[in-house]
C-alpha cells in the first residue's frame, strides 16, 4: 500500500495512491494512519482522488481513523470519486465523514 504525506501548515495531507481501499489493504491503511495520529498528528486531510473503489472494510478503516482522532482532531477527506461517494451514500456515512470538493478546501476548513 502506498501513502504519500505532504505537510500543509498544521495539516498533514495523506494521499492514498491506490485504486482500491478494500479488505486487502484496510488493516494496513488503518495502522498507518493511526501511527500518524499517535505520533501527534491531529489534523489530517485524506486525499482519495486515486481511489475508485471502496468496500466496507475500507470504509470501516476510515471511520476508525476518525474515531481515533475523536474530538481532539479532525479528518477531512478530499478527492472523493463517484465510486467512493456511492458507497458513502449507500451506507449513509456521507452524513458523518467530512468531504470537500478540493484539497485546498479540505485544508482551509
Amino acid at each position: 500500500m502506498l501513502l504519500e504525506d505532504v505537510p500543509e501548515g498544521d495539516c498533514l495531507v495523506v494521499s492514498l495512491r491506490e485504486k482500491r481501499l478494500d479488505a486487502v489493504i484496510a488493516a494496513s491503511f488503518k495502522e498507518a494512519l493511526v501511527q500518524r495520529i499517535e505520533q501527534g498528528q491531529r489534523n489530517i486531510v485524506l486525499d482519495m482522488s486515486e481511489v475508485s473503489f471502496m468496500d466496507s472494510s475500507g470504509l470501516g478503516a476510515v471511520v476508525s481513523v476518525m474515531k481515533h482522532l475523536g474530538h481532539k482532531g479532525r479528518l477531512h477527506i478530499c478527492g472523493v470519486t463517484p465510486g467512493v461517494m456511492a458507497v458513502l451514500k449507500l451506507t449513509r456515512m456521507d452524513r458523518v465523514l467530512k468531504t470537500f470538493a478540493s484539497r485546498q478546501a479540505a485544508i482551509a476548513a
Partner: protein
Amino acid sequence: MPLHLVVPATLSDARAATEKVMDLCGRFDPEDRARYGTAVMEWLVNVVKHSYHHAQGALITIRASAGLESIELMVEDTGVGMPPWKFDAAPAEVRFDAADLANLPESGMGLAIIKSVMDSVHYRSDGGINRLTALRRWQR
C-alpha cells in the same frame, strides 16, 4: 459471456474475482457499478473471513451472467457458512447514530450493503454447501 470462476478463498483473490464480475456491469452507471461491486466484494470477503476463516486451500465458486434486464450472481462455498436465519434477520440498511462518534460502525456493514444493493438475494446452507444467489436489475 457468463462468468464461471473457481478461486482460492483469499482476500486478494476476492478482489480479483470482484473485478471480473464488475467487468460484466457495463450497463450500470458508474455509481451503480461501484455499489454492485462493493456488494459482491462484501460477500466474498465474508466467505473468506467467516465461512472459511482464511483456511488455506479453500475454494469459492462464482457464477455471474448479464442478461438484457439484469445481472445474476451465484456464490458457493463449503465452509462453516452462517445460519440462514441470521442472514435473513440482517437489516437491509446500515444503522447508526450519526451523533454518536464512539459507536459508529467499523465493521458488520456487509450484509446490509448486499441487501440494499440487490433487488433479490437468497442464502441457503444445505448439505455442506453455502450458496448465495442475487439478482440486480440494470434499471430500478
